[in-house]
Structures are given as C-alpha cells and as structure tokens.
C-alpha cells in the first residue's frame, strides 16, 4: 500500500489481486447473495482505498485496515437500506425477520440449472448463514473470508475477544447444523 501511495500502480494491482475475491464475498454474503449490492459495495470499498493511498499509515496489517473500511461500508449500507443498526441485528426478533427475508429471496431465485448437490449444499449453507445474526455472521465472514484472527476481529469490531469467540461459536453451530441436515 505504501508503494502504491508512492505512485506504483502495479503495487495496487498486486494488492487488489490478493484481496479482491475475499472482500467481494464478504459483501456478497452480507448482501444475502445479491450480486448488484456486492458489486456496489465492493467498488465503493476499493475506491475508498484508492482515495486513501496518500493518507495510509502503517498502524496495523493491511487486511485489518481493509476490512475495517469494508465493515464501515457494510454498516452504512444496512443503515441506509434497513434503517437499523448493526447491533440491533443480534436480537432474536431481527434474526427471525432476516430468516424470513432470506427464505423469500431463496424461493424467488430458484434455478433448475443449479439443482446439483453442490448447488444445494451451497444454497443451504448460504441460506443458513443468512439466518445467523448480523454481528455473528460478520465475525464469521471476517474470519473465513478475511482470514483475520480473533484478536484482529475483536480490534476492528471494538468487541472483546470472548465476545468474538462467542459470536463465532454461534455461527459455526448454525452452519454445522445446516450441513448435517444436508447430509
């Protein structure tokens, strides 16, 4: 990132190539598979990275800084679309509302071409992820897509390590249950 800040465009290409898929999927999973929203959020994120190239300071890992920006963008998206805060998504009422929303989306996007086992597993898995409360889903995506450690997730979400661990445990349990049902 410092090389790009000094005017090396190839450094940005390498940086983008390393993180592009993960950040895209981070948004895609949070957007319940809505690719247009993921495209928009993904582009906004990287344009923000481009704009911050001269102000970037090495205070943490680049991935931690990158997912901090990504998460802020995601929170802004939720606020603008749903009018709810990220923290409020953790209660059961909101979880139920999210599950219903995911189910409706799934029913409306049925495609015979994806009626394979992998496709079914994917849909089940992602549908199960859609039922996970937002903060737990966020911790899970930061962990499996961003490759961030518990400490890094705790740092950028301003939560304690135990809280992050609890959120991850809950997300894993939900997804494992979805995979067991599929088996």
């Amino acid at each position, binding site marked *: 990132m410092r090389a*790009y800040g000094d*005017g090396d*465009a190839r450094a*940005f*290409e390498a940086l*983008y*190539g*390393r*993180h*592009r*898929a*993960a950040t*895209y*999927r981070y948004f*895609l*999973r949070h957007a319940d598979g809505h*690719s247009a929203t*993921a*495209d928009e959020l*993904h*582009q906004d994120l*990287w*344009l923000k990275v*481009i*704009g911050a*190239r*001269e102000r970037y300071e090495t205070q943490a890992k680049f*991935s931690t800084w990158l997912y901090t920006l990504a998460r802020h963008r995601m929170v802004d998206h939720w606020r603008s679309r749903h009018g709810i805060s990220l923290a409020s998504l953790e209660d059961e009422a909101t979880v139920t509302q999210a599950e219903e929303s995911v189910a409706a989306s799934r029913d409306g996007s049925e495609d015979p071409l994806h009626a394979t086992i*992998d496709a079914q*597993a*994917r849909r089940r*898995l*992602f549908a199960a992820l859609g039922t996970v409360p937002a903060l737990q889903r966020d911790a899970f995506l930061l*962990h*499996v*897509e*961003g*490759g*961030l*450690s*518990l400490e890094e997730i705790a740092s950028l979400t301003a939560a304690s390590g135990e809280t992050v*661990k609890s959120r*991850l*445990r809950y997300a*894993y349990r939900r*997804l*494992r249950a979805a*995979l067991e049902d599929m088996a």
Partner: protein
Amino acid sequence: MSNHERGSSRSPDGDAALDRAWQQLSDEQPPPSLDAAIIAAAHKSIQGRDEHAQVVRARPPYRSWPTRWQPLAAAAAVAGLAFVLVQSLPRDRDVAPSMRKEEPVTTPAAVQEQPGIPSSSEAIKAKTESPPAAAVARESVTAPSSTIDQKSAADTATAMPATELDQRQIAAPEMSGRSASEAAAAPVPARTTAATAARDNVAPPGAADRAARVTALYAAGDVAGAADALREFRVVDPGADMYLPESLRDWARTVE
C-alpha cells in the same frame, strides 16, 4: 488474480470440515468489468497526481510580498543597526584634538636666538627665583620667554594678531634650537610675557614690583644694583624698560 488465502488462522472453536466446505462452495469472484474499473481508477488516480505534480512544478512558487522582501529587509535592518552602533562608539579622532593641544608643536623654527641674550636655562632659573614671573609663566605652554627676540617681541606684540603670536610662542622651543623633550623637561614651562603684557596693556604680575625695585635702587644711588636688577628684570621680561619711569629710561638705555 489470486485469491487471498483463507482460513490461515482458525479459531479453536472452528470446524475444519465446515471450513473446507465453505472454501469449496464460496468461490465467487467479482466480475471482470468491476476489476477493470477499479484498476483503471487506481491508475487514473496516480496519473492525476502526477499531472497535478507537474503543474505544481511548472508553476513558479508563489511567494507573498512580505515573504519575498523579508530577507532584504532583515539585511537592511542589520546594516542600519551596525551603522548606528559604529556611529555611537567613541572614536580616536574625537579625542585626538584635546590631546594634541598638550603636545609641543613641531613647526619649523622661525626666530633665531640672538647672541647676548641669556640662555634658556638661565631664563628659567631666573623665572623660578621670581614668583611673579613664574605665575605669568603658568599661562604659557612650553616655551621660555627668553627664546623670543626682545625687540621683535616688543614690536610684534602690538602688531601681530593674537593667534599668530600664540603660535610663535608655542613654537619657541624649536626656535631656540632646543629639542621638544628638553623643553618639556624644563621645571617650569615658560612663555614670553612682555608681548602678552604689551598686547593686553596690562602689567604682568611682579613687573611693577621689579620696576619699583630698580627705581628704588637707582634713587638710592646704587646704580650698579639698579642695573643688575634691570638686567634680571629684562631676563624675565624683555619689555622691562617700558615699566620704568620716564626719568630712568634714558639711563636704562645705557644698561647693557
């Protein structure tokens, strides 16, 4: 483009099977058009900065009026301050005139010492023996009064301007052939008083007494003593005859 390596640091509560399944199933990529747009934006941002930098380099740096003239103003202020300090310091030439007044003037000798006139040392000796003459001598600078020609002193006393007379009197040591150091070493610096007395028409202190003594000796019949007293008087004051009564002046002319 390669994907970021996922699952590099799994949590203790993580499920390895779930992680593997997630990696297999979650493999979406951003559309190539989005990648191209983002990379193009990154290149454009750098080019824009380079162009901006070139514009900034091509443009001469703007400096406000105070900034442009600040170095010159500072230099002028320092120079002015230095000039004022130099002017305010005491200089040698300011002190020199007062010091030069005390130095003997080294102008060429203008008057030669005439034979028959008592020497300077004798004149000084006579002056030291005569308190009134010594008091007169305090007015002088360096020259013994006897070094100036009696007649010329008497003649020039009335005709010569005071400044010229003073200058001649100041130059007397060289006129008499003595060095300045010898003159300075004299116990009582003396200068002719006859010319001064004639110029001012005021009898120098002691002149009347000397004249009265000569008159008294002459009246008492001691012509030789009167002659000696007159000679001593002449040594001190070349114009001594002028202080004598009219009746004694004819006799005084006979005294050598």
